């Protein structure tokens, strides 16, 4: 085989690989560390928008973010004297999520929810359900679950998997967009 034919073949292979790479769905990985209403809500807006754009979406919930995925009207037992009271002080679930600013014992959150409803903006519960329906991959960090003394039974059905940092890193490395919220 001549030198040019060999080069031609190699270029053809590279072009095919490049086309395959460019035509794959774009991927988004979100780390949801915060549990506040006004941080978790935009995380789900981004996730739902990305799914509608045809992108693959992973949401990796860790630390306070885990509390937002808790079953509604449920209090985790906790595993020791330090994490038991935590679940009394921080109710969790979309209903229990506080505002990061101007929460004012729930008065501020009520006002924000009223303003949102007036604008026709879907509430956090609806956004979470929509993300689940659209196939957003919702993951809970087992390290943070251990700290908070939570197990799988404490979480809403939207959680698809219980994973560690290696899973997040593998997904993030393949992603076109990553955000820490």
């Amino acid at each position, binding site marked *: 085989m001549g030198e040019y034919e060999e080069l031609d073949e190699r270029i053809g292979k590279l072009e095919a690989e490049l086309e395959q790479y460019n035509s794959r769905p*774009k991927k988004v990985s979100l780390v949801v560390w915060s549990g506040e209403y006004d941080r978790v809500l935009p995380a789900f*807006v981004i996730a*739902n*928008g990305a*799914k*509608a*754009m*045809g*992108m693959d979406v992973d949401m990796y919930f860790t630390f306070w973010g885990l509390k937002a995925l808790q079953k509604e009207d449920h209090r985790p037992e906790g595993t020791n004297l330090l994490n038991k009271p935590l679940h009394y002080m921080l109710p969790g679930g979309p209903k229990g999520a506080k505002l990061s600013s101007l929460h004012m014992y729930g008065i501020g959150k009520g006002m924000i929810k009223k303003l949102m409803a007036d*604008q*026709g*903006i*879907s509430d956090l519960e609806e956004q979470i359900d*929509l993300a689940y329906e*659209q196939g957003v991959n919702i993951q809970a960090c087992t390290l943070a679950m251990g700290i908070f003394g939570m197990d799988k039974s404490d979480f809403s059905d939207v959680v698809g998997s219980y994973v560690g940092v290696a899973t997040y890193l593998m997904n993030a490395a393949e992603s076109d967009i990553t955000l820490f919220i």
Partner: protein
Amino acid sequence: MSLDKIEADYTLDCKGMVCPIPIVRLKQKIGELEPGQTLEMIATDSAVDSDVSAWCNSTGNEYLDYREEDNTYYVYVRVPLN
């Protein structure tokens, strides 16, 4: 393309819906259309022009046109032939 010549095969009413619901509905609806068919979206969220254009860019659909009348936005999208 002249606006009054677009005869949409389907109209998607997104009035009163806000980000990201219009594009979520658009994605759901466009899957039901045949190649070459046109969809008209009617919305009140002023982001739909930019968002539908970006959505088309990402999904390979054709962004045809956009007009605004009395704070209502009309966006036209075509499913490509292949």
